[in-house]
């Protein structure tokens, strides 16, 4: 039988209730004492489909911006005007929460950012972004998971594992460190006796399925204990309502004392090839969803918000010039966002490359000047306490010449 109760720390077991504790712990590291007063939370949101950074945060001060963007260009005046962030950049009007957090010093924009990937395939781009490897197709583990696995065994963050939200865990969260999984539930729950028997069979015959189901059961118990049993799906990860709901669920789990400290979410639908829209429209709706996700995290994390950083990243950007169908095709440089109470914010970080034809990469894309891996390394160094060497070798392999960007954390 799989009932490894002897390995369960009593206080942990009490926190989860005995039913939850039955399944999950045989492969979990031993629960250690709480480390210090600080209890950091770190969320990664992957935007799949390539976010148009020039629309999310428009360089309205660049003389070439207006002509490139034509009918979908944002403006600082008129109805639905963009939020001025500084004298040069303006935030999309669909993002009032981000604007508020930026003013409060809790949000950073990193512009003209990209990974090291320079082709234009979504799927390879996402593979590079999430695996943290220099090239696609190298591993089946993500940088977030490897970061957790690299934390010292006593760290409380590592014990909870990463939370992968949705029925398909994002690659960024997959790997040897335990992954919890959750998504809004809508089926009657199988009873515990059946679950235990299935776990027993898997323990004898199929370790891969045993690991996955055990983590699924564990998160489910935690979700029930956090009062999320009745959360019903409304819209998927490409829908503004769905984004809100997913964020609220992840935040509630992360706020729980026994909950995970690290989570990965994926929002979809950013591949705006046609009729992208400007201040209103397709992209505006999705940015609104992302923006309300920030508000959900802020509200549901409660006091933990002050120790939280949310990093929002996408596989690449889109063409600087709108295409023939009032949309944008696959490009390179884009934006990344950092949001949360632990962010030293109120800044746009950009080494602006310019938008003149000869300044564009291959004559078509915003040229990347900041590597998002340097940003993520900086956050993980100062927020989670990983060393530069670990980050350069294990988390983002072969990036020794790409130092962590410092000073992002308050």
């Amino acid at each position: 039988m799989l009932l490894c109760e002897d390995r369960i720390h009593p206080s942990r077991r009490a926190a989860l209730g005995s039913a939850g504790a039955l399944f999950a712990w045989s492969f979990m590291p031993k629960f250690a004492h709480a480390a210090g007063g600080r209890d950091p939370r770190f969320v990664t949101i992957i935007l799949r489909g390539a976010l148009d950074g020039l629309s999310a945060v428009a360089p309205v001060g660049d003389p070439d911006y207006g002509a490139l963007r034509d009918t979908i260009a944002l403006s600082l005046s008129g109805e639905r005007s963009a939020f001025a962030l500084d004298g040069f950049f303006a935030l999309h009007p669909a993002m009032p929460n981000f604007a508020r957090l930026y003013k409060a010093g809790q949000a950073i924009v990193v512009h003209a950012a990209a990974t090291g990937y320079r082709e234009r395939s979504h799927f390879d781009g996402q593979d590079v972004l999430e695996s943290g490897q220099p090239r696609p197709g190298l591993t089946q583990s993500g940088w977030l998971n490897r970061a957790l696995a690299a934390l010292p065994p006593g760290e409380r963050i590592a014990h909870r594992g990463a939370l992968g939200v949705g029925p398909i865990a994002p690659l960024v969260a997959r790997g040897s460190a335990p992954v919890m999984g959750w998504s809004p539930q809508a089926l009657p729950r199988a009873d515990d006796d059946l679950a235990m028997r299935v776990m027993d069979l898997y323990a004898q015959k199929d370790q891969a399925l045993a690991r996955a189901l055990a983590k699924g059961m564990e998160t489910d118990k935690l979700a029930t204990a956090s009062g999320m049993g009745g959360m019903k799906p409304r819209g998927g990860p490409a829908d503004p309502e769905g984004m809100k709901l997913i964020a609220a669920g992840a935040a509630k789990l992360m706020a729980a004392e026994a909950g995970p400290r690290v989570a990965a979410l994926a929002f979809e639908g950013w591949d705006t090839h046609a009729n992208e829209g400007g201040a209103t429209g397709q992209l505006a709706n999705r940015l609104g969803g992302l923006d309300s996700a920030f508000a959900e995290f802020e509200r549901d994390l409660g006091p933990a918000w002050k120790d939280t950083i949310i990093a929002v990243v996408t596989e690449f950007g889109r063409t600087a010039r709108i295409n023939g169908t009032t949309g944008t095709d696959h490009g390179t440089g884009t934006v990344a966002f950092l949001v949360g109470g632990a962010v030293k914010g109120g800044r746009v970080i950009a080494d602006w490359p310019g938008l003149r034809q000869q300044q564009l990469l291959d004559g078509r894309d915003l040229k990347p000047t900041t590597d998002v891996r340097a940003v993520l390394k900086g956050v993980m160094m100062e927020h989670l306490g990983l060393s530069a060497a670990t980050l350069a070798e294990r988390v983002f392999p072969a990036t020794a010449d790409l130092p962590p960007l410092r000073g992002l954390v308050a």
Partner: protein
Amino acid sequence: MAQSEKDARNVIALQRFGFGPRPGDLAALGGDALGAMRQIVRLKAVAEPVGEGLRSTSQALRELDEFRTEVQRKRSAALAFAEAQRQQEQMNGAGAMSSPVVNRPPSSTQIPQVIFRAEADARLRCAVDAQVGFAERLVWFWSNHFCVAVSKGQPVRVTAGSFEREAIRPHVFGKFADMLLAVEKHPAMLIYLDNRQSIGPNSRAGARRGRGLNENLAREIMELHTLGVGGGYSQTDVTTLAKILTGWTVINAYDEDGELGDFRFNPNRHEPGDQTLLGTRYKAEGVKQGEKALADIARHPATARFIARKLARHFIADDPPAMLVERLARVFQDSDGDLAVVSLALLDSPEAIEAPLVKLRSPQEFVIAALRATGSRFDVNQALRISQLMGESLWNPSGPNGFADTEAEWATPDGMKVRLDFAATIARQAPGSANPSDILDATIGPIASAETRRSVARAESRAQGLALLLMSPEFQRR
């Protein structure tokens, strides 16, 4: 060969290449499941979904157009009525007291949802009712390879099913080049990957309207449909193919000729001039320029390798044996992409029986297999909802690369938890009173482990025994 070994081979074939046996199938097949599959290929026997609500693509798009016009008309009428009422009340001096009641227009998802559900029902029934299921599994494979996603909007929602019936099914045992052309010309694909709006910058329409290229379809044709991402094409090739395909569009309400919703080549939008793609020059000859380019891409050696690898990954293992991939690629190349010949080569490969059954069933495969094994009543709404909860919404992948085909994507904590909940639900609904151990014998029996047999036999109830059967590794994997 001993009977027990024959039985095991039959179950392996039905699991790997079908949706698993229903009780009774093993006996009915007369002892040679692979032989039955070969016969299906030779006869090119691909099921045709049937149902009252099925429409052709152009008919579906016309109905959608009428429906939208009607919704618009009702909305305008309701607003006009409210305005008249407001004026009337103002004249009566009651304007400040009551607000006008605006009748809400009918929900604009009605017709699209009706068509989608009819298509889904007919499609999934083909799998539930299939005896050997090989052709149906290939339909699913190709449909996912050339996927469209209904979240794109109502025009794709109403044509996703007819796309599969019109562009995929007729070519499952035909030539790959023919399937490719049928797919890329189909309105559902032209809408999904934005080509219907793409305009040659130097075409008459481009010069007049200042609109231009959209390279979405061109890129995904080479990256996802044919050559694969390492297949040797450049950004210039993407842009060139996009130019070649300008003018490939769908007849809309404003076009004067032809039936709304049909494919149309619009010469006014087509980029003029010869084009050089992947080193080959294609003369300016309208729609033929694109047809010839696609025919050549379909025969490219990189396409043969890409398709061979995907097929082997789907049926044999996440990381398929290199020898098998090579063999299938050679057969693909030598037969000029004859998918009947390639399918036979797959059935005839030693891996067909000898490779271990390690692939995890996709959520939809699991739903269908569970219904078949338990004889539960098929309910399209339930099947759609469950597949969605497990991350595989019918005809709605999150990107044009389709749903994943590896265990890493499906054996997730949440995914397995939903499988368990679903197994418990379906086991409670299962009709009849057969002993779960007897159902086990009649389905996965010949390959079931002693542990699985024991677990099912010791269940505290019939429903629990069936749920354990459905969750057993031998049932989850194929």
